[in-house]
């Protein structure tokens, strides 16, 4: 649904990086290498990196059924 606020494993706040990560690596306009973007954002540990890499926004999918 919405990006998790913190990393499940270590508790670092990862939500604040989502929009920039999405703009630069996830969308069609953003075609940077996700690994480079994460390095740039300072998301170093692999537990935090997977939080952003594997996230899918679902608000648009569920909103018609409100």
């Amino acid at each position, binding site marked *: 649904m*919405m990006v998790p606020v913190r990393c499940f494993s*270590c*508790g670092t706040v990862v*939500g*604040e990086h989502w929009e920039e990560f999405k703009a630069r690596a996830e969308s069609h306009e953003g075609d940077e290498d996700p690994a480079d973007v994460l390095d740039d954002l300072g998301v170093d540990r692999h537990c935090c990196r997977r939080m952003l890499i594997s996230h899918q926004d679902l608000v648009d999918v569920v909103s018609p059924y409100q």
Partner: protein
Amino acid sequence: MSSQDFDVEFVDRDDREARFVVRNITPAFANGVRRAMLADVPTLSIDSVRFVENSSVMFDEQLALRLGLVPLTTPDDYEAGETVTLALDVEGPGTAYSGDLVSNDPEVEPADDNIPIIELKDDQRLELEADAVMGYGRDHAKHQGGVAVGYRHLQRINVVGDSPEYADDEPRMLRGVIEEDGELVPTDDFDNDLTNRYPGKEVEVEDVPGAFVFQVESDGSMPVEELVLRAVDTLVDRADELEQAVQL
């Protein structure tokens, strides 16, 4: 405890992240400090939420959980159990961010402003009032001031000879901080590979007795330095309490 004095030396220092070496402590004491940083330093965090209107796609309790995880800056004049009231009022279309939270104490504010709370569509609205409580990390992880707090031994490298002439070029990985003639060298300086630092040498790695490298990150509720000092203060308070109890 040893009769020598403690000695603290910083390797990296930042508000959010720091690495420092502490000398002349025991593993038990190092772990005590680590645990105090996680469990015994109270921070402010949203604990109860009164929803005025929530027509978003998430349930009230889901949003309350997300709000609780947002780190809030914690001034040092708050006692455990004290509360601060925050409010949020956002109308769609748009996204409600942690930065939209308005606090009744200007010193208490979200440490990060860009955390999305919920995306709102047309005609959706989120209005709420929340109470942030000063609580302990031992009660709920949202009150932990430190994240990924750890320590490891400071290490020393001894060159024991040359590597055999036709030996394979295998990397020798080591992560942490090494001490070299009294200088502290983080292993990232040479790509964590000892064969880069000592080419063609055979080396042995040894722990420096009583020296620990702490790696501390803060979630933003307070600077790392303050977190460590408050953690040590709680240990002092506990020792005092024990002394009082024994005297009675």
